């Protein structure tokens, strides 16, 4: 029998993601990929995978999955989460597992991931990875295009997600210590590309305001709520390309940060662009989180990018063996009613 994880409950939005489908945006193909690539890399390191292997991205509320393999090594990296290992599907209670570590699970055991606390995205990697075919060099799920990942869509109950390995390698389990996956209070951005569509006063107000992450945010874009930004030259531009982290300002003046699943092109002016080093942290933000933006220069962005690369390089040295019998119990927070699925971001594209 093909080794697999059998999905009993899919969670709110569980997809396979890697570091993205790069190189085909000129054909309208979105990049996609993990919202928090730092956490993805750490999850893969704990599972013994290459850094960019495909893993499950769990948003807000996790899945329940049955192990259909002799045994499998699974790692969990992200915010605090209620994760239990149940002896079988009929069981109610199991043993809790903390995040930021790997575990080895036997056939028939059940991984039950409840709600996440203090962050939006949890990564669940399996040793050897999932046995899914790359599309254009990536296994990231592109839901809008219906490609990649598992059948081009989020997981649903009844799916059997095939694994590459039938059994886990014999080694100790490990954990990762000191990896900073905190939520940012300040997000750094460079003004432009359409800075000239806003007055100096409005740009200053944008950087002085506090914004709240709003409902209707999803993998395409994070909707922010706060003081509206006025447009100096209207809110329609001739469509151009959309970089990751673009902060577009539609007609209502409420900014939207464009994320992994963003369309390749769109027609709203973009007041500023989040720097690459801050995008993993932006991907962790949950509904209701408060942020403000800080204007930085390209030189500062480059310095911070180098720091992020150093942080990535330090992942292996942060990994240590798990001490036996020490497993913290995390209490379940209230589930946010954050709806990730509805509320497609209106990118102002001419078509819709």
């Amino acid at each position, binding site marked *: 029998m093909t080794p697999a994880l059998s999905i009993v409950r899919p969670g709110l939005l569980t997809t396979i993601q890697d570091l993205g489908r*790069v*190189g*085909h*945006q*000129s*054909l*309208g*193909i*979105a990049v996609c990929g993990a919202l928090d690539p730092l956490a993805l890399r750490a999850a893969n390191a704990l599972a013994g995978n290459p850094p960019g292997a495909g893993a499950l991205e769990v948003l807000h509320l996790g899945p329940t999955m049955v192990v259909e393999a002799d045994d499998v090594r699974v790692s969990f990296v992200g915010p605090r989460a209620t994760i239990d290992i149940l002896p079988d599907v009929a069981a109610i209670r199991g043993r809790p597992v903390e995040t930021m570590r790997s575990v080895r699970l036997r056939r028939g055991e059940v991984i039950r991931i409840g709600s996440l606390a203090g962050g939006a995205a949890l990564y669940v990697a399996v040793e050897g990875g999932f046995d899914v075919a790359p*599309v*254009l060099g990536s296994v990231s799920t*592109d839901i*809008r*295009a*219906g*490609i990649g990942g598992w059948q081009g869509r989020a997981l649903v109950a009844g799916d059997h997600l095939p694994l590459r390995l039938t059994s886990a390698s014999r080694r100790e389990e490990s954990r990762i210590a000191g990896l900073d996956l905190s939520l940012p209070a300040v997000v750094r*951005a*460079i*003004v*432009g*590309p*359409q800075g000239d569509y806003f007055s100096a006063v409005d740009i200053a107000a944008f950087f002085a305001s506090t914004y709240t992450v709003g409902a209707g945010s999803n993998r395409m874009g994070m909707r922010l709520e706060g003081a509206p930004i006025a447009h100096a030259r209207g809110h329609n*531009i*001739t*469509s*151009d*390309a959309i*970089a*990751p*982290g*673009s902060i577009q300002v539609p007609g209502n003046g409420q900014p939207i940060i464009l994320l992994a699943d963003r*369309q*390749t*092109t*769109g027609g709203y002016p*973009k007041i500023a*662009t*989040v*720097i*690459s*080093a801050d995008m993993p942290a932006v991907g962790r933000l949950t509904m209701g989180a408060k942020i403000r933006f800080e204007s930085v220069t*390209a030189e500062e*962005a*480059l310095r911070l*990018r*180098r720091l992020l*690369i150093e942080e990535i390089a330090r992942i292996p040295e942060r990994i240590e063996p798990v001490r036996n019998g020490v497993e913290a119990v995390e209490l379940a927070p209230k589930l946010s009613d954050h709806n990730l699925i509805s509320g*497609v971001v209106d990118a102002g*594209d*001419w*078509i*819709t």
Partner: protein
Amino acid sequence: MPPYKVLTAGDTALVIEFGDAVDRTLSAWVLALARRLDDAHVAGVIETVPTFRSLMVYYDPIALPAAELIGRIEALMDGVEPTSATGRRWRLPVCYDGDLAPDLDDVAARTGLTRAAVIDRHADITYHVYMLGFLPGLAYLGDVTPELMLPRRDVPRIRIPAGSVGIGMAMTCIFPRESPCGLHLLGHSPVPLWRPQNGAGAGALLTPGDQVTFAPIPRHEHDEMAAAAAAGDLVVTPIEPAKDAA
């Protein structure tokens, strides 16, 4: 050399902007630079995305500092000719019939043309592929004749089938897959615009710079071609290959 602006889109992308309009000349400059930059295989450039009026250049700022990339682009701009190459020419079948053309009567009423005249005005134009975007393989074809220029529908449709052919403002599109859509639907093409599993160019039939005309076909022919396409047997080839610059 045309005037252009270099805009910053964060620390990993630059926008080379030639203007702020849908315009064939601007598009020719964008595509000429895209071709030059792609052909130059500059280390540190990750990908380029041509749009109506600008070229987005994604790069790794550690491998290729922005100032150096701008210098390379300046050098490549020197001697660029906007008409130095033409894309492939395509003649794509479209059925403008019955339920495949849900907005044909409405467009006829709005424009004061007969159904036959709407079909004729839509099909009998050589369109330019300005760019691809919104969905994989979705090409923005222009320019629609001024007689057929209409704003988008007041209420977009939640879902239209793959192959739908729509118009809105100066653009027309064939939808590569099911999608929400605010365009006026004039017909349906059996030709798949995107197949991720096979074909060159990452599976997209059209690329920016290609030229497209539409061939009206009767329903029975459409249905035969659609069946062939579903079976993977429909072969669509350009009527003329791309021409390089002299």
